[in-house]
């Protein structure tokens, strides 16, 4: 068995905010009709279906609304294959897809009072109206990303593994001390 290495290998940085690679994280993509997916998520994870552009967080798993026919489950790296198998059997022969994509993306955590300022430097998003539990798929600098708010000062960002280094360096650069913009207070 090969050793699991996250794209950013546990990188950490400190500046206007604390940045941290979340390390190896389990991710499961579900595609199909949301009514079908919602029933499977409820049965296997015991979590409600997230509303449009929302995240439902439970113990050991988060369910992210990604598009009108897609959900992403964030969970532990080791338990992802088992959960995916359970979700697949809950869905049965229904027209839906379950795929373990844990190694496809990088998950970066941002924490600090200025997290919104840092994100707003890279994403064309108005973060003034962004409650806890909301999710937004957008671009970070020049690549696709999704950000969601886990608490008042904690944010998560996912991007594809191939561009993780780019996104990380962009975040570290815009979060350097001295770059405060105080856009959001």
């Amino acid at each position: 068995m090969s050793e699991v290495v996250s794209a950013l290998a546990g990188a950490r940085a400190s500046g206007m905010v604390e940045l941290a690679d979340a390390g190896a994280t389990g991710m499961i993509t579900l595609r199909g009709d949301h009514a079908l997916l919602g029933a499977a998520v409820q049965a296997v994870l015991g979590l409600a279906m997230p509303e449009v552009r929302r995240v439902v967080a439970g113990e050991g798993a988060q369910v992210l609304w990604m598009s009108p026919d897609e959900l992403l489950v964030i969970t532990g790296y080791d338990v992802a294959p088992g959960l995916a198998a359970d979700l697949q059997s809950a869905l049965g022969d229904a027209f839906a897809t379950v795929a373990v994509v844990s190694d496809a993306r990088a998950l970066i955590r941002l924490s600090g009072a200025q997290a919104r300022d840092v994100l707003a430097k890279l994403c064309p998003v108005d973060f003034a109206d962004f409650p806890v539990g909301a999710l937004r798929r957008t671009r970070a600098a020049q690549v696709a990303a999704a950000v969601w708010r886990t608490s008042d000062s904690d944010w998560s960002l996912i991007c594809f593994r191939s561009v993780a280094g780019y996104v990380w360096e962009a975040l570290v650069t815009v979060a350097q001390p001295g770059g405060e913009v105080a856009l959001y207070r």
Partner: protein
Amino acid sequence: MLLLTCPCCGVTAEETEFANGGEAHLKRFGPGSDDADYEAYMFARKNPRGVHFERWRHIYGCGKWFLMARCTMTLEVFGTYRAQTSEPPAEIVAKIKARRPEWEGF
């Protein structure tokens, strides 16, 4: 800069989050159709000065295609609507008529 609202996920974002997909409501003429029809389907585009219907994709967001009516002169966006339709919905047509009474219609 256009500000578009994706009818699939409800996000309002600037145009850099979207990708343009050319003219909307084209009728396809495939193999076996008349040469003139096929040529018109392949190459002839309206390119109007004024009201225009376009296909757009929310490429950095939910990834879905949708349609939009806008003015090519003023860049005013009249509205966006779902792609699963062969002609603009009545409320979009009404909005355009209200803003451009001289518009000849779809």
